[in-house]
């Protein structure tokens, strides 16, 4: 650590990633090793884990106790909720959403994946690609996570055999590719022995790729987002109304996608009024250009009526507003979502009344079978819904913009977050979904 200067520390970028898998796959061991070997687990935390492990009669420290933060989780020995973990190397700062892999926690995996730029899917080398692996790949594909890492774990238990790894990597890559996952990196590891997690393995010289940490440190984060359709959902209007600044009127928000430049002609939705960007304040600093995910304040040439919930977009690149939204959703609440349900829909900074018009299908993620007209969606269900909103919304396809193509449904009575929605087609690939309701098999 002593060679790191404060400038080095301040110059790193941020990578948000998610892990999916179960204790059986060695997920906690992998996470524990990433934290431990990158020296992010500190002495007092390790002592607390050792102490707690001894109290439970375990001899070795149980690294899962580092992430299982709630009493109920420790008592039941399971991970219930997403745990966020933080670690850093000289090259990058990492935010890890550690999600439980079991089917009843699909909502947690979806939550963790929603902000992730990379997902690590774990498999046990002895079992290969199983139902749960396919589910994890499907969640990553649905949520359009740009990078997926397949960590083939427990290579020590298959004698570090290249053929075992190659077969699993091939099967997974074919499956995830079919779902439209844009980039897949397969890495043979042993989290327990430490092979290819932080340090390169001496047991697998047939493998020429990066270790898990090397890949996390170097994977290209999608700054290309800055080239997409520019979108600024207005959060608040800033009007100091002071003697020095009697006429200042700025539209503050976090750029959800793309790039804005001074001089750009813009349209304000839903009103459709147009103007030009006369200035951009980047948290107190005037700039000529700003991009996602910067929080900015836009100044316009004309004094037009703009308020919270409006969307500022480039005039040549405005989305069409619609009251009829078709989306893939993950239901996250314990109460069911039914046809006819009256809800609130939050998109960007706008919340409108909406009604669930239809639930055409439910999707089983394990085998991608489609079940027509399920009538309702319960917690952890993935399905297609048709929604009618009280006012037109300028939504993008989720495939084009994860931020402006997503929404949540809220129960108007008790405020519960009901459902997470993604506008447009479920998967990037054309038709990976099977339409038969009863066919349980999946053949390759």
């Amino acid at each position, binding site marked *: 650590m002593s060679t790191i200067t404060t400038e080095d520390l301040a110059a790193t970028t*941020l990578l948000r990633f998610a892990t999916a898998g179960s204790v059986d796959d060695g997920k906690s061991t992998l996470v524990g090793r990433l934290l431990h070997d990158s020296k992010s687990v500190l002495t007092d935390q390790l002592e607390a884990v050792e102490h707690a492990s001894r109290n439970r009669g375990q001899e070795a420290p149980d690294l899962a106790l580092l992430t299982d933060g709630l009493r109920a989780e420790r008592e039941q020995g399971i991970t219930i909720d997403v745990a966020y973990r933080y670690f850093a190397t000289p090259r990058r700062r990492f935010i890890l959403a550690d999600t439980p892999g079991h089917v009843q926690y699909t909502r947690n995996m979806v939550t963790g994946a929603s902000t992730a730029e990379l997902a690590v899917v774990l498999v046990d080398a002895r079992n290969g690609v199983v139902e749960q692996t396919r589910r994890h790949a499907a969640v990553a594909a649905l949520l359009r996570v740009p990078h997926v890492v397949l960590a083939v774990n427990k290579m020590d238990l298959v004698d570090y055999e290249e053929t075992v790894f190659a077969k699993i990597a091939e099967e997974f890559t074919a499956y995830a590719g079919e779902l439209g996952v844009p980039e897949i990196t397969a890495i043979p590891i042993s989290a327990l022995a430490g092979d290819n997690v932080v340090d390169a393995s001496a047991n697998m010289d047939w493998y020429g790729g990066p270790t898990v940490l090397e890949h996390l440190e170097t994977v290209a984060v*999608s700054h290309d987002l800055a080239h997409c359709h520019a979108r600024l959902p207005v959060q608040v209007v800033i009007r100091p109304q002071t003697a020095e600044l009697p006429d200042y009127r700025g539209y503050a928000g976090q750029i959800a996608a793309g790039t804005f430049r001074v001089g750009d002609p813009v349209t304000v939705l839903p009103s459709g009024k147009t103007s030009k960007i006369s200035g951009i304040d980047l948290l107190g600093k005037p700039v000529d250009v700003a991009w996602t995910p910067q929080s900015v304040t836009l100044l316009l040439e004309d004094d037009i009526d703009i308020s919270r919930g409006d969307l500022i977009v480039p005039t040549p690149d405005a989305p069409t507003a619609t009251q009829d939204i078709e989306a893939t959703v993950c239901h996250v609440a314990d109460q069911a979502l039914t046809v006819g349900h009256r809800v609130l829909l939050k998109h960007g900074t706008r919340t409108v009344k909406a009604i669930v018009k239809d639930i055409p299908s439910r999707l089983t993620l394990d085998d991608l079978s489609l079940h027509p007209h399920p009538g309702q969606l319960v917690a952890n269900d993935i399905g297609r819904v048709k929604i009618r909103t009280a006012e037109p919304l300028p939504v993008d396809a989720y495939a084009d913009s994860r931020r402006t193509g997503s929404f949540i449904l809220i129960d108007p009575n008790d405020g519960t977050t009901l459902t997470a929605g993604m506008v447009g087609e479920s998967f990037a690939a054309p038709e990976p979904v099977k339409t038969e309701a009863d066919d349980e098999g999946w053949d390759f």
Partner: protein
Amino acid sequence: MTTATAITGTGPTPEGDDSPYALSHLDALESEAVHIFREVAGEFERPVILFSGGKDSIVMLHLALKAFAPAPVPFSLLHVDTGHNFPEVLEYRDRTVEKHGLRLHVASVQEYIDRGALKERPDGTRNPLQTVPLTEAIQQHRFDAVFGGGRRDEEKARAKERVFSLRDEFSQWDPRRQRPELWQLYNGRHAPGEHVRVFPLSNWTELDVWQYIAREGIELPQIYFAHKREVFRRSGMWLTAGEWGGPKDDETVETRQVRYRTVGDMSCTGAVDSDATTLDAVITEIAASRLTERGATRADDKMSEAAMEDRKREGYF
């Protein structure tokens, strides 16, 4: 040799960290926190910032000032005063409030003790006693959003905390009934009497906070930097010798060069041995530290495995 990566799609080509559009981690965290402040300003009637004069609340206030500039911060401040404050911190608090023309509410633990509404604990620690004055101040002023400086890296119960965390009218936290938080779509709906605790620094680490303080040139109370102080040893920590909590008969006072990593109730916040008199020295020291700030400095978190979870359930910060 097995190839590791398969590019299967035809999507746009991502750029690396040398892209002109790459943000530093501090810029990314700052932008996220500003977004959170502005969401609250847009969706709530009576937000308040918990302001203790500690570094996390100082960074919160700095972010709020930037989020709404050149307009003033549209929130007031609330300090839950344990009565065991570091004088340097109180002085800093009052100066800051005046400098920015802010409104400060103070909920006093001492006042509750004086009128018999709270009882001093046998160990003299007042951190757990803050919950009742905090909750009653929230009810009395009808605050509907309460900004806290809590970070998920601080403690394992906090690692499970949402950015927008719903509390009932008793300020209670139910970790099993938290709303999933997807994308950057925060759900602030609440019934009358309920409120939402909001944590803009959720994704920051201790090191991020210090790097940001250095980058932005934010002034801090002097106790965060190495200075000579009369201290005594208890539970492996250096506590300030003085009118509260010690030293007891078997504890001896000595003068040491120390600094504080956290600022809380003086009776249970420990100092660490340190020569770090500048921000750069502090950052170097933290980057090399093998202890978390809570493990090194907070007696109240050493009580049990679930000490923080239990306090949070009851409405603690």
